[in-house]
């Protein structure tokens, strides 16, 4: 443990020494090499989706329930945690609004794929009209979902996808470039257009984090060109290590460091804790991906102003609206958008995914409404 920490720190220092010479031209540490697609600068710029042919599956001879009451079951990764309680609440809200949808949430108490398969299998037998799911494993869940489709049951995913041909639609909570834009814009608002910042990530090769960092760099180059990246450090997803790495950054750069990005739900609260302990609240901004509960203390004492994530209540709400539109024949393969109640029109992206919209930013005003 300790030696790993020392080693990582040493590696981080070595990389920092190397990159301070090379950073002007090269990419940020921890970013991947895939092509980036930065969004337009400023607020509210609607993206025109790139059209890709529909790649989802279709149910076999589903009964025509357009406009009739439908019974849905929601099988999340697991039940009893705040996050999926929130998606489930969103579903109930949507069902109440629509009036002709009944939805129950049921699933395993641990995030186990074989348990989840059994739940779905039982609901196929009991005969529901539609299944909503958040997959514990994108491939392992595919056979049972295909079985549902073959029995004429509608299948819509949210939060965690399956292979596309095993479901009709997937409600995607956030795209990489959307998260990157929200992160950079929040940071620019807090530290100004010429501030310097550092990044605390899990490891340089973790896929999601690497994607976000690459998109952040691309977006910063386009929209915040004067902001200065200092360094990226690795902190696994280890609470203690994240705290130590953030403290090291604070000591190393002193006044130069104006902001810290936390790229994981562990790194963000740990960075906030490091800033608090160093007595630098208000001097060093922390922006990052995290869940509201972990961040409430820091948001309330003013140390953290914005936490970036999506809104799981809206995610569940959208999933039910997508299902209803699908059953009613209002959302067909090839359509470019779908009407989702209070969320307005949601765009179809990547063939058969529905984008929830820009990420949600939790701040002092709204964070207490969420419990997960």
């Amino acid at each position: 443990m300790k030696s790993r920490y020392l080693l990582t720190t040493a590696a981080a220092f070595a990389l920092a020494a190397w990159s301070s010479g090379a950073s002007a031209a090269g990419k940020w540490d921890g970013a991947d090499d895939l092509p980036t697609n930065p969004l337009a600068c400023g607020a509210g710029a609607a993206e025109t989706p790139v059209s890709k042919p529909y790649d989802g599956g279709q149910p076999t001879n589903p009964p025509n329930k357009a406009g009739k009451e439908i019974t849905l079951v929601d099988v999340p990764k697991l039940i009893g945690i705040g996050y999926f309680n929130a998606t489930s609440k969103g579903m109930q809200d949507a069902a109440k609004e629509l009036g002709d949808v009944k939805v129950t949430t049921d699933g395993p108490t641990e995030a186990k794929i074989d348990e989840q398969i059994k739940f779905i299998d039982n609901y196929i037998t009991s005969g529901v009209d539609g299944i909503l799911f958040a997959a514990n494993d994108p491939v392992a869940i595919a056979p049972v979902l295909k079985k549902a489709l073959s029995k004429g049951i509608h299948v819509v995913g949210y939060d965690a996808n399956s292979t596309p041909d095993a479901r009709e639609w997937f409600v995607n909570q956030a795209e990489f470039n959307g998260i990157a834009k929200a992160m950079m814009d929040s940071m620019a608002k807090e530290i100004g257009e010429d501030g310097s910042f550092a990044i605390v990530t899990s490891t340089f090769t973790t896929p999601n984090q690497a994607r976000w960092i690459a998109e952040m760099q691309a977006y910063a180059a386009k929209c915040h060109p004067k902001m200065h990246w200092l360094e990226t450090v690795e902190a696994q997803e280890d609470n203690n290590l994240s705290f130590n790495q953030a403290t090291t950054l604070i000591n190393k750069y002193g006044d130069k460091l104006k902001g810290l990005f936390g790229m994981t739900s562990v790194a963000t609260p740990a960075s906030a804790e490091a800033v608090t302990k160093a007595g630098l609240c208000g001097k060093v901004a922390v922006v990052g991906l995290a869940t509201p509960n972990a961040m409430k203390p820091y948001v309330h004492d003013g140390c953290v102003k914005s936490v970036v994530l999506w809104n799981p209540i809206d995610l569940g709400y959208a999933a039910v609206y997508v299902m209803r539109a699908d059953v009613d024949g209002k959302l067909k393969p090839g359509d470019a958008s779908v009407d989702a109640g209070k969320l307005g029109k949601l765009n179809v992206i990547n063939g058969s995914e529905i984008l929830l919209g820009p990420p949600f930013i939790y701040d002092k005003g709204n964070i207490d409404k969420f419990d997960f």
Partner: protein
Amino acid sequence: MTVAAQAPARKAPRWLARHETLLAVILLVALAGLGAFNERFLTIDNLLNQGRLMTEIGLIALPMTFVIITGGIDLSVGAIVGLCAIMLGYSWKTFGFPLPLAIVFSLFVGGLAGFVNGLVITRVKVPPLIMTIATLALYRGLAEGVSQAHSVRGYPEWFYFLGQGSVLGVPTQLLVLVVLVVVAGVALDRTTFGRTLYAIGSNETAARFSALNVDRAKLIVYTLSGLASALAAWVLVSRVTTTRMDMGQGYELDVIAAVVLGGTSIFGGSGTIWGTAIGLAMIQLLKNGLALTGVKGDATIVVIGAALILSVLVASSLQRRRD
């Protein structure tokens, strides 16, 4: 056959027959009850599908019955499932074995894992509970270390026949299970090996003095337990089309629940494969029936727990009356 080996065996079935009969009656009543509540429950389609879903637990429950009859326990079975699933996937995808060889290799690893349990239990005299708790962590850790928590996917179509295919309308793996239930049942009832297991569980010292090879018998049952876990891993990977290191987590409890519900005494010395088969079917159908009747997942677990306590109470009161 020695007299010492016969004595407990003759006594056991008479009481067990009653426990099993009772269990079978309860099962039929529960089936009828749940069937009356929900017309989708008692359909051939659903029952066969439930057979498919319970096969992995059932395969492991057979040698677990042997192990518990000898007065032992094997808590590492779930971890062996995870390890073997990973070994199957990795030896195929990463080490480049042909898939049939990878399957054989995974079965070998499972047998070896069980053999190691048996070896330490018999040679070092570590209590089975301690040893298999230790290997539960060890084998799961190995699976995690080898796989680095990555999954293996993309098996060829023929590989799915065992887990998703069917022969004459019956799920393939259910046929395998039925054959193995008969083999294990006959082995326990009709062979010297089976009698030896009862003798060990009833009185290990007496069994040793009767010149029975206690250590060899134990070594065999723990190895079988590992082997059956490997077979379950193969079936499971084939059914869910992917290999993950967390596969089989918590299986040990489901397996032991089925065995104990089936009337096998946790103290050893009595129990049958037929009882285990009924116990297994009962848990699976109860879970399914409740789910179809609209009872949610968490409440189902409560009902299963209550059923387990009830059956143990009935069993022990029957035993007391007999004594």
